[in-house]
C-alpha cells in the first residue's frame, strides 16, 4: 500500500499556500480591525468544518450536534474569562461580590462547585479539550458499539444539541441563561477587548487553525484515513477484514468534537461572549452546511466554505435581511442537488484541469503526476 509520500500533493500544496497567504498576509493588511475580528469569528467555524470533513466526509458519520462541542469548548473558556472579570473589586456593587453577575441576579450566594476549578488557566485549557472529547467518547461509544449509525445517529446528536440548549437556558443561575456569558474582559490580566489584542488573537487563531489542518492532513494520509474511507464505502467489508469499525468511528467523532471545541474556545476569546444560540440545532446544522458548501471531502474547501458562507451571511443580512434565509435555503438545496462535492468539487472539475494543462504543457507530453484524490472513485 503506497501512500503519497509527500505531505501535500501539488494541488493541495497550492491550496495550502493560497490559504496561508490570504489568512496571514492579505486579510490582515487589507481589512480594518472590525472586519478582521469578523473573519476571526468566521474562522472559529472553520475549526468545526475541519472536524466535519474528518467525521462526515471521510468517516461518513453525519453529526448534527457539533454545536454541542463548539458550545462546551466555548463555555469552558468563557467560564474562565468570566471568573476573571468578576473579581471582588469589579463586582463590589453586587450583594455577593466575587461571583459572576448573572449568579448574583439569580440569588446564588456562593460559587457553585463545578465553577471552582475554572480559576486555573491550565485546567481550563485541559477542560476545553477533555470535556467535549470525553462527552463525544461517551456518545460515540454508546452509539457505535451498538452499530447505530446514519440517520439515527444524526437525529440523536440533534436531540443532544436540543437538550444542552434547553439545559443552558433553563439553569440561568449557573450558566447565564439565554443571554449567555457576556462582558468578558481579560485573560490573565491581559485585556482582550482593544484593537491590538484582537489582531494578536486573530493570529493565534490562524496558527491554531493551521496546526489543526496539519493534524487532519496527517490523519488523512495515514492508514487511518484510508480505513475511514473504506468504512464509509463498505462498512461490512472493513469489519470482516478484522478492523473494529466502532473504534475508528469513535476516533473520528472525538477528533471532530475536539476541533469544534477549540473553535468554540477561540470564539469566546475573539467575540467576547458565549451564548446558547451557538449551541442548538440551528447553528449545528449551519455548521454542517459550511462543510457541505466548501466540499465535505476537502480540508481546504471546508475552510473556504466556512469563511465564504459566513461572509455572505453577514453582507446579505446587513443589506437584505429578508433575502438571507431564502438564499441560505436555496444554497442548501443547490449544494445537495447540483454539486454534492461543494466548491472544492467544482474547483476540481473545472479549474484544476486547466491549471494542470497549463503546467503539463511545459513538461514532457503524456506524463502527469496526478495522484488519485482520496474518496474519488478511480476511473
Amino acid at each position, binding site marked *: 500500500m503506497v501512500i503519497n509520500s509527500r505531505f501535500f500533493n501539488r494541488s493541495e500544496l497550492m491550496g495550502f499556500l493560497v490559504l496561508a497567504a490570504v489568512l496571514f498576509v492579505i486579510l490582515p493588511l487589507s481589512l480594518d480591525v472590525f472586519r478582521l475580528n469578523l473573519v476571526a469569528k468566521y474562522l472559529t467555524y472553520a475549526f468545526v468544518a475541519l472536524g466535519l470533513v474528518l467525521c462526515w466526509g471521510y468517516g461518513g458519520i*453525519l453529526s448534527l450536534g457539533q454545536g454541542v462541542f463548539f458550545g462546551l469548548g466555548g463555555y469552558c473558556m468563557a467560564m474562565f474569562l468570566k471568573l476573571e472579570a468578576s473579581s471582588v473589586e469589579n463586582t463590589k456593587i453586587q450583594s455577593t461580590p466575587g461571583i459572576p453577575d448573572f449568579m448574583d441576579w439569580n440569588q446564588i450566594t456562593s460559587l457553585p462547585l463545578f465553577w471552582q476549578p475554572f480559576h486555573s488557566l491550565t485546567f481550563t485549557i485541559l477542560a476545553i479539550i477533555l470535556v467535549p472529547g470525553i462527552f463525544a467518547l461517551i456518545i460515540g461509544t454508546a*452509539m457505535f458499539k451498538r452499530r*447505530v449509525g446514519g440517520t439515527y445517529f444524526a*437525529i440523536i446528536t440533534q436531540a443532544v444539541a436540543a437538550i444542552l440548549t434547553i*439545559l443552558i437556558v433553563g439553569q440561568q443561575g449557573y450558566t447565564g441563561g439565554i443571554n449567555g456569558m457576556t462582558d468578558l474582559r481579560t485573560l490573565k490580566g491581559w485585556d482582550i477587548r482593544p484593537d491590538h489584542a484582537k489582531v494578536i488573537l486573530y493570529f493565534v487563531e490562524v496558527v491554531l487553525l493551521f496546526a489543526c489542518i496539519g493534524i487532519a492532513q496527517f490523519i488523512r494520509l495515514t492508514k487511518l484515513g484510508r480505513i475511514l474511507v473504506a468504512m464509509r464505502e463498505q462498512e461490512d467489508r472493513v469489519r470482516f477484514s478484522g478492523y473494529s469499525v466502532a473504534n475508528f468511528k469513535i476516533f473520528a467523532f472525538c477528533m471532530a468534537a475536539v476541533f469544534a471545541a477549540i473553535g468554540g474556545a477561540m470564539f469566546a476569546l475573539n467575540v467576547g461572549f458565549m451564548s446558547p444560540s451557538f449551541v442548538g440545532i440551528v447553528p449545528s446544522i449551519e455548521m454542517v452546511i459550511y462543510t457541505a458548501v466548501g466540499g465535505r471531502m476537502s480540508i481546504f474547501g471546508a475552510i473556504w466554505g466556512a469563511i465564504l458562507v459566513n461572509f455572505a451571511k453577514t453582507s446579505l443580512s446587513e443589506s437584505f435581511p429578508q433575502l438571507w434565509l431564502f438564499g*441560505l435555503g436555496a444554497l*442548501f438545496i443547490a449544494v*445537495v442537488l447540483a454539486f454534492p462535492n461543494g466548491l472544492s468539487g467544482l474547483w476540481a472539475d473545472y479549474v484544476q484541469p486547466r491549471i494542470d494543462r497549463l503546467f503539463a504543457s511545459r513538461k514532457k507530453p503524456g506524463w502527469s503526476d496526478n495522484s488519485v484524490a482520496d474518496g474519488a472513485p478511480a476511473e
Partner: protein
Amino acid sequence: MFGDYSLGDLGSIFVMQGFAGLILFSVYVLMALGLAIIFGQMGVINMAHGEFMILGAYVTWMTSNFFQSYLPSLFSGYFFLAMILAFVASGALGMLVEWVLIRHLYKRPLDTLLATWGLSLMLQQAYRSVFGAREVGVELPQWMLGSLHVTDSIEVPINGVFVMCLTVLITVGVAYVMYKSRWGRQVRAVVQNRIMAGAVGINTEKVDRYTFGLGCGIAGVAGSAFTMIGSTGPTSGQLYIVDTFLVVVFGGAASLLGTIASAFSISQTQSTLEFFLSGSMAKVLTLLAVVGILMLRPQGLFALKVRK
C-alpha cells in the same frame, strides 16, 4: 416533592396533568403520524415537516378570518372546512416538493435532511414575509370554549377533548389506509422491495408521491388542530421537529403502534414532571431518558423484524 399535597390533591394533580399530557400527546401523534409515514416508510428525513404543519395552521387561521368577516352565521362550523383545506394545501405542497426535490434523493437519506432543512428555512421566511413575524391566534367558536367539570377539583377543557377525538379519528383512518386498503398495500410493497413492486406493475413513483403528500397532509391537519391550543408563528414548527423525530425513532421507525406508544409515554412523562419541576428541566429529563433508552435499545420500542 410530594410532601405538601394530600392524597386527594395528588390524585387530581395527576389527572389534570395527565389530561394536559393527553393534549400534548395528541399533537405529538398527529405530527408523528405524518413523519412516521415519510421517515418510517419512505426513509426520507423531512426536516421541513414542522413547516408543513404550520402551513396547515395558517390555512386554518385564514379560513377562520374569512368566516368571521363573510359568513359569521356559519362560524361555529368553520373548523371542519379549515381542516380539509389544511390537508389539501399541505398535501399539495408536499407532492410538489416530492416532485421537485425529494425524488432525486431517495438513495441519499442524509442529503434529504440537508435539502429539506433548506426548504424549511425558505418556507419560514415565506411565512414571515406573507403573514408577518408576529404569532397569530385563531378565534375559537363559542362551543369550543369553556371546560367540563368532572369533579370539584378536576376540569377538562373542551377544545382539548375535541383535539383528542380528532386524533383518534385520524389515527384510525391512517391505520385503515395503510393496513387495509389496496393503496396501503402498494405503499408497503414499495417500501419492502422497490424493484419487485415495480416488476408486478405498481407505479412506484406515483406511490412515492402520494405517500409523501399524505404524510404532509396529515401534518397540515396537525397544524390545524394545533391552532386550537396555541398560537402560530413562522418558527413554531421548528420547536416541535426534534421532539417529533424522537417520538418516531423511539417508537421504532416502521411501526405505527410504536409511534403512538412512544408519543404517549413521552408526553405523559413530560407533563407529569412539568408540575413538579420547572418546564425546562422536565423537558431535559424526558429527552435524556429517551436518548438513554435509545442508546440501550437503538431499534426503538416496537421494532419490525425485517430480513435485510
